[in-house]
């Protein structure tokens, strides 16, 4: 800590503490009509999702498009998609923190919020997907009159632990990071509502030297804990598949492949969120083009890893001479769902190649379009893995098709609405850009520059 970010603003006047405060505070000014429309849209989507889920519970899980043999479909696709989205948030907030990558500070809050809300969204899917969601608590190891415990050998139970740990740790990390910023808001608040809200949520933070001491120490430790989670959570999610024997799932490459894919999709999602927020709230001086360049490079890297993993899957299938694997990987590009495969290949492997052309890495419009492409591509990647593998496995007599249903679509829309709803509320009520951490990379105000040790 204590590094100075002055070189980032060479051409312009240096950013001051006060400017950071006022820029961020501006974001939190009373909502505009546009914000209300956005929130209403999100709530409408949540309503669609809730109605779909209600229908599914009342009529039967069969209202979703799953069938025999495709017992997992859109819900698990969404689950993996949202867990994946979460990952880059943790990567940016924790891993880059440990690596002291300064470009993280202005986008990390957004990324971390995205993480928490994405996990919050993802966490719904295992519930939605259950046939008897009212018994979800049987997956928890709680002492009960049945004298029964869950099966700790099941990858799904690992999921329960991994996702709940992830949610807890990332939420903790997120909230702890928010505390000093909420304290700022508390001290600037003008309305009683906000005053009360921030007074309570700031927990009485004062920024005294002992608090900072323990805070920075704890923050580093949180980052240290969150970092292995980046690798482990999606590895565990990938084991849901890799530990099984379904051709197309049973692959040792899955954990790194999933982690890379998660970061890939997450960074894309950060871009999708950051670009409009930056434009609307005029954060150009806080979130600069250098940030986008850095993120673009991350996308290039992870896109490369993901593409390599795709190729490896095909190569492994061919080289193994296993008839089931071979059939599966022939089926993917040329079978019933060829269109899903080629969407994935285009969005995830081909489109990001454009970033090798440097000007595009700072072309905001292009990046926005690309990030949406990647989001779509990554959704289809999961769809391909889950649905394609299941529809074409060992016994040809039971090969089948996935029948996408309106409930599937409704719940997917609901998930986006749910996520959007939290994001929308968040940017209005809490600082979506980390004030304290941006200040941290600015030079502290000094009467005598030379007295400063660096």
């Amino acid at each position: 800590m204590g590094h100075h970010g002055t070189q980032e603003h060479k051409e312009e006047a240096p950013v001051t503490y006060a400017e950071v405060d006022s820029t961020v505070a501006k974001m939190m000014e009373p909502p505009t009509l546009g914000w209300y429309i956005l929130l209403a849209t999100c709530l409408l989507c949540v309503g669609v999702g809730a109605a779909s889920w209600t229908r599914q519970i009342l009529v039967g899980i069969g209202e979703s498009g799953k069938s025999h043999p495709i017992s997992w479909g859109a819900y698990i696709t969404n689950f993996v998609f949202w867990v994946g989205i979460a990952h880059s948030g943790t990567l940016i907030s924790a891993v880059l923190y440990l690596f002291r990558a300064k470009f993280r500070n202005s986008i990390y809050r957004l990324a971390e919020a995205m993480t928490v809300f994405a996990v919050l969204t993802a966490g719904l899917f295992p519930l939605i997907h259950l046939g008897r969601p009212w018994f979800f608590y049987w997956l928890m190891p709680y002492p009960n009159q049945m004298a029964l415990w869950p099966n700790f050998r099941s990858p799904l139970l690992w999921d329960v632990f991994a996702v709940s740990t992830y949610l807890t740790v990332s939420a903790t990390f997120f909230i702890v990071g928010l505390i000093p910023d909420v304290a700022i808001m508390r001290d600037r608040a003008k309305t009683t509502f906000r005053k009360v809200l921030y007074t309570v949520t700031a927990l009485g933070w004062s920024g005294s030297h002992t608090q900072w001491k323990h805070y920075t120490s704890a923050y580093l430790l949180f980052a240290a804990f969150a970092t292995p989670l980046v690798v482990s959570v999606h590895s565990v999610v990938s084991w849901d598949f890799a530990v099984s024997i379904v051709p197309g799932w049973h692959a040792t490459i899955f954990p790194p492949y999933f982690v890379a894919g998660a970061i890939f999709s997450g960074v894309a999602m950060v871009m999708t969120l950051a670009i409009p927020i930056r434009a609307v709230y005029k954060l150009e001086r806080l979130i600069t083009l250098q940030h986008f360049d850095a993120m673009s490079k991350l996308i290039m890297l992870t896109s490369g890893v993901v593409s390599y993993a795709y190729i490896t899957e095909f190569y492994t299938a061919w080289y193994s001479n296993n008839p089931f694997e071979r059939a599966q990987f022939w089926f993917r590009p040329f079978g019933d769902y060829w269109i899903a495969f080629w969407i994935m290949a285009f969005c995830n492997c081909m489109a990001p190649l454009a970033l090798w052309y440097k000007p595009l890495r700072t072309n905001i419009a292009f990046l926005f379009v690309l990030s949406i492409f990647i989001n779509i591509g990554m959704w289809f990647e999961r769809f391909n893995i889950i649905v394609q593998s299941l529809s074409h496995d060992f016994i040809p007599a039971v090969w089948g098709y996935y029948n996408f249903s309106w409930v599937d679509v409704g719940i997917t829309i609901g998930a986006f609405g749910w996520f959007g709803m939290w994001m929308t509320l968040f940017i209005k009520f809490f600082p979506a850009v980390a004030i304290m951490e941006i200040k941290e990379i600015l030079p502290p105000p000094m009467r005598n520059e030379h007295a400063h040790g660096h």
Partner: protein
Amino acid sequence: MTSIRGNKVVVGVFSFMDDAMNAVKAAKAQGLDYRVYSPVPNHDLEALTYPEKSPVRFFTATGAVAGLTFGFALAILCSLDYPLRVSAKDIISVPGFVVIGYECTILFGAIATLLAMFHFCKVPDIFRKIGYDPRFSQDKFGVVVGCGAAQTDEVSEKLKQCGADEVEVRNGL
């Protein structure tokens, strides 16, 4: 050291960090208790005010170890409590339980860290902020020096000398 509690405190509001640091040095020299409020944590400030390492890390380690133990114990004991065979797997399938142990390590470690941090930072504590000023969270530095009622003028003077924009004498809590 005289505690800042129960005595008078002198609050100095500083625009510049080096001024604030000088004030701290002065307070330290006089053996007065002090507290510094700053908008951001700072290395130099920290070296001056709290040179020791934070004890939070011990809690973290303890939590992590406890989590590891708990995770494995939970998985193993639950499996033994009602031993049911699945496939040909052993009742105690250590490879699978590693995941549980690992996740619990992180979970417990993180929670222990959080609790320790709250403990040491004395939060949540919404109202008891001695000598606090809302500007301290934004762009001002605050040095709060505790002293006897008799010393207030002297200390105020000293803080002004160090470059305080404002100096105020308040009651300690």
